[in-house]
């Protein structure tokens, strides 16, 4: 059986192990949180290199793609270079191909509707999802400056997001990753309510679940959430706050859903096709992936 391991800079308390089926083949997947320790992540990647079929990076990106430009994130690149035999992926291949397809399907199913306001907690790491939401007629509110830098300035168009990304990303990626993204115990800190009104104003909350959880302070009545990497406790918490529909872009297995890096690692391990290969798009579409949708009262599960 193929084996993939996700090395996350996040908390080890979210570690897990499960079996996925991708392209008809079972894959053993596991997550190992490094609690924010880069040195430990490098050691573990080095130790697993050549012993597993693919490695995923969680809590850090190797690449950020903003419009037509792709920026290398030095920390992510350093981690990827620690393996010389095993492919290392960060989920950007899944974000580029699969997540826009999920948005299109949700729009076709009328779960997402033109005119709704979509708060994307961080859009620079999910530009294709932001583009798909805008193309579906939703009003974007991108929270990159709010949730990464605590600057109360919502970015309201894809064009401004791209412009700001081109100015800021080449420099910001050089900063220590802890300054931009919650890692280690930060992922379990009490929610920060300072941007509550943007959650209240949104019909749809989308993006990285660690950012969402870090700032999610109020009720979610009637809202749709589009995210990844949730545990059974996370789902219960969201439903208890009145969330109308939870969509995770990855399937639910053993009570949790997986990050994009895990899905991409599994797909690369089975297919041998990488995100930079021309066949990647067809490989993703053929993989039989499906989003996980939860709607309470009655809870409807589609996997």
């Amino acid at each position, binding site marked *: 059986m193929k084996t993939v391991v996700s090395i996350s800079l996040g908390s080890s308390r979210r570690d897990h192990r499960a079996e996925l089926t991708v392209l008809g083949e079972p894959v053993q997947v596991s997550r190992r949180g490094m609690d924010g320790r880069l040195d430990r992540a490098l050691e573990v990647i080095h130790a697993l290199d050549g012993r597993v079929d693919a490695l995923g990076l969680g809590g850090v990106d190797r690449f950020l793609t903003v419009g037509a430009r792709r920026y290398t994130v030095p920390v992510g690149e350093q981690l990827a270079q620690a393996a010389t035999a095993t492919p290392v992926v960060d989920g950007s291949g899944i974000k580029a191909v699969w997540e826009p397809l999920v948005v299109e399907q949700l729009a076709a199913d009328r779960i997402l509707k033109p005119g709704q306001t979509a708060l994307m907690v961080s859009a620079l790491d999910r530009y294709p999802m932001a583009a798909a939401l805008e193309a579906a007629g939703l009003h974007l509110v991108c929270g990159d400056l709010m949730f990464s830098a*605590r600057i109360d300035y919502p970015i309201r168009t894809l064009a401004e997001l791209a412009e700001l990304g081109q100015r*800021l990303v080449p420099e910001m990626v050089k900063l220590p990753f802890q300054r931009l993204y919650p890692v280690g115990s930060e992922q379990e800190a009490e929610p920060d309510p300072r941007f509550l009104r943007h959650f209240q104003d949104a019909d749809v909350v989308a993006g990285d679940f660690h950012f969402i959880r870090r700032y999610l302070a109020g009720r979610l009545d009637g809202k749709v959430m589009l995210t990844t990497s949730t545990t059974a406790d996370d789902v219960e918490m969201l439903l208890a706050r009145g969330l109308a529909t939870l969509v995770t872009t990855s399937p639910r297995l053993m009570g949790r859903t997986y990050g994009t890096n895990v899905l991409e690692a599994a797909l690369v391990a089975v297919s041998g096709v990488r995100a930079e290969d021309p066949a990647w798009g067809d490989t993703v579409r053929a993989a039989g992936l499906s989003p996980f949708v939860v709607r309470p009262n009655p809870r409807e599960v589609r996997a």
Partner: protein
Amino acid sequence: MSQLADTLARFAEACSRNERLRQMNHDWNRLILVQPDDADPHWLFYQGGEAAVVEEGGEPDLIVEGSSAVLQNIFSGASTPTEPYMSGDLRVRGAQDDVMRLDIIALLIWGE
């Protein structure tokens, strides 16, 4: 007026004229001490989205230190703050969020 004082005045004026930065900083009221290693200090004050050079301040929220040349390059837009910050040629003391905001202001203000 020293070259750095003149540069800081133009930096503050550009901040205050820039509508996007005015919106971003509408709730950011901070006193910043710009302290060259080799010259007298300067003070920048942000309030209500506007920035100004002031004669003197009290307890600063942020302290920005480096050689006059490094500070001159950063506040004039000749170089970005990230690399001198990472190399230790630029030292910024204060709350992490304030340090990052000043980085972002410097990156956005020039070239708009």
